[in-house]
């Protein structure tokens, strides 16, 4: 156990240069963004003088190394700075918006897995069959659609034409009371407070954007499930199990699937971090108040602190996620050493 603890701390130590790299790169990237935030935020009919004033207020009159030192110093104190375009502290913005994005992404992955994993298993049981081909075509079609296009299409059909989806107005319709913030996840918060009406309302809002994302994420999960199941089914232990006369469903779900979980979980982890970064476009279409739409606005406005804060938060999430996958690995398959790769 202490060995495992040691390797975990080693992994964390390894993450430090990565995070530092992210801090440096994001700093350089933001400064390379076009435009002068001072001019942008001095507003219409600002004169040269007032632009200079704004520049001083924003600390942009200092040299780049100076700005970087100030930025790192603030970071070490846990201060991500003030977003100029929302006018709030970046930490507050992220704390408010991250749960929204996470809730959406997790919901999407949930939908995606509940379709893609059975599809993958089904395809693997009869490779080369019509069923297999159909599965492949369906999931490949999903990943081939640009998410913003799918999103608008779904809104058009299910909200505008059919009227069965709720208005695409973010996380909750006007008619519901927002649940008290405990975790920031509306579904969880509403469930904790027992407010099932709101819970249902939040769920309804989630369906369309989550489906949009789910369509996009089904392919890698289904593919990996299929491949992993194929190799599991062709492996010795399954042959042994068959020879021992176990029922085919027992073999399929009891043994093969269990063994196929490992690569699927890895894929899931990669898909999760990818989706969290990629749902910017879906958030924009559905007016979802998450970090993705936040990042777009910040980039467009050259809002340095907000872009840097977003990137850093995502990087930390990514590192944590990888750690979790490693731990999940060793839990699912104890044979797998946790040594450094």
């Amino acid at each position, binding site marked *: 156990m202490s060995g495992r603890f040691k390797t975990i701390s080693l992994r964390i130590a390894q993450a430090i240069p990565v995070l530092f790299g992210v801090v440096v790169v994001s700093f350089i990237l933001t400064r390379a*963004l*076009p*435009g*002068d*935030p001072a*001019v*942008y*935020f*001095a*507003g*219409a*009919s*600002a*004169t*040269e*003088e*007032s*632009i200079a*004033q*704004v520049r001083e*207020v*924003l600390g942009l009159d200092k040299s780049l190394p100076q700005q970087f030192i100030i930025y790192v110093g603030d970071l070490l104190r846990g201060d991500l700075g003030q977003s*100029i*375009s*929302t*006018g*709030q502290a970046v930490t507050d*913005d992220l704390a*408010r*918006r991250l749960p929204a994005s996470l809730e959406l992404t997790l919901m999407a992955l949930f939908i995606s897995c509940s379709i893609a994993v059975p599809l993958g298993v089904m395809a693997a049981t009869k490779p080369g069959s019509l069923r297999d081909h159909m599965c492949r075509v369906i999931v490949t079609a999903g990943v081939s659609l640009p998410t913003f296009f799918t999103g*608008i299409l779904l*809104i*058009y059909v299910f*909200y*505008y034409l059919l*009227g069965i989806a709720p*208005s*695409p*107005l*973010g996380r909750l319709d*006007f*008619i*519901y*009371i*927002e649940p*008290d913030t405990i975790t920031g996840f509306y579904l969880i918060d509403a469930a904790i*407070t027992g*407010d099932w009406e709101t819970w249902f309302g939040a769920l309804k809002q989630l369906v369309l954007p989550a489906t949009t994302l789910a369509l996009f994420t089904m392919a890698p999960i289904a593919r990996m499930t299929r491949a992993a199941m194929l190799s599991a089914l062709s492996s010795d232990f399954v042959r042994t199990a068959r020879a021992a006369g176990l029922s085919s469903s027992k073999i399929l779900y009891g043994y093969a699937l269990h063994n196929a979980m490992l690569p699927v979980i890895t894929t899931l982890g990669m898909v999760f971090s990818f989706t969290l970064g990629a749902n910017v476009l879906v958030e*924009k*279409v*559905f*007016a979802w*108040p998450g970090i993705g*739409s*936040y990042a777009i*606005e910040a980039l*467009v*406005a*050259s809002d340095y602190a907000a872009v840097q804060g977003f990137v850093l938060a995502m990087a930390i999430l990514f590192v944590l996620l990888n750690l979790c996958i490693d731990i999940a690995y060793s839990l699912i398959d104890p044979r797998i050493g946790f040594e450094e790769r």
Partner: protein
Amino acid sequence: MSASRRDFLKLSGGAITAASLPFLKVLPASAASDVIVAVMGQTINSLDLHRTGTNRPSYQVAVNVYDRLVSFGTKVTPDGGVSYDYSVIEPEIAESWEITDSEMIFKLKPGGKFQDGSPITAQDVKWSFDRAVSLGGFPAVQMKAGSLESPDQFEAVDDLTFKIKLIRPSKLTLPDLAVPVPFVINSKVALANATDDDPWATEYLHKTPAGSGAFKVAQWKPGEQLVYERNDDYTSGPVPEIKRVIVREVPSPATRLALLERGDVNLSFNMPNKDAKELSEVDGLAIQTTPIENSIYSLCPNLAFDAFKDKRVRQAIAYSVPYQEVFDAGAYGRGEPMWGGPSMTPSDIAWPQKFPYATDLDRAKDLLKEAGMASGFDVPLSISLGQIDWMEPVALLIQENLAKIGVNATIEKVPSANWRTASLVEKRLPLHLETFGGWLNYPCYYFFWCFLEGHLFNSSNYRNEEIEVLTLETLHMPIDDPDYAPKIKRMIEIIWDEVPRIALWQPALSVGMNGVKDFEYWFHSQLDVRNLKGV
């Protein structure tokens, strides 16, 4: 927690200002006549207009939640819409005023109250005005336009008497007091929350308004929504009919269109022209389109670019623009045409008025030949990514026609963060689109910003000695002065001949309404909810 929410439901809203309180449960928007749901595409980033970095859409908070000394009147436009009336100045916090050549004295309404119930005093006005000229940035610039430059000019004579010492008599000073900038803040509350580092309480007022306006802010979730709650004890004017207005931010114009059409929201602010055009034929929806005063969407040839130094080349460009197509594709007919005027000399001082240019490619080619440019030239045509919805089709059409006279334009999309820097501050875009509109509705005010050398919106780097002199002469001159009209006419004539800005059309502000009426248009083109009524 649900108990506190129920308590919240029972409250009439008297003491609630904290943005953190849970949000009131309301009926579906369509069913509640005193609750309005509005959507807009932009985001409100501060509740304090004076703060550095406050963006345009946030100005609506200054309008709805704060009052000014005076306001403009209200009129009905020819098409039945409601608009502010530039010709009438009405009391708001002030009850009456006297103006001499050296000072303005305002008597405040006795009994005027802030939203927390404390009286409005001249000290509050003085503190607010000092703040507007001291914090710098846009507010200071706008105050300066009304010759309000230094705190020394402002004096609280007694609790209900406020005096402004004038630097010069100017027709711009009184209307400049009715723009959103000089709003009156509850200085007692603000000062209680000021610090040594922040004497003007910008951090506090940024999130917590302290005004006397017709609405209070019941909730503000940046990037999501702002909820206005009626101030039932409003003292500066009639109490609004609508009890609560929810302003929701929805970035996608397609989504906003669907929401309005399906009746899930009551008002869509600043709709794209195309949507406005289409919805105006739909039953049950009212689309109010008001031309934005003193504003022209223009094509600006930059005189710093060699080819455009010759006025004949600029005229050639002006003759090559496919105006009607540009108007149809860029504005979908919403707005006023600004081309095809009958004569090179103006007959009156209306502004904006039609420029005497129309599409005439032969004339354009001749002019280029006269200028020795018959073989044409290459020029980048710059547009802003932030206004791509109309700039891109317009630029494409202009590009196509320029190619016909031998001018090879390539379209450059400039990111919005860089647009102002490139076009207005550095003034380095050789050919670009520009959108200036003046808040104070005088031609001389437009000229002041757009045609004087070095001035911010003179993105064409234009300079003309006569214009320099005439503009400064007319800027503060009363419009009934017998010299005013002839001078303005002369100014218009010059810039028509020299065309440093090629007028395309006068833009319009379109607001879609479903179940509400009487949206009032203001020169600042921001959402004023005070006059809205249920149907």
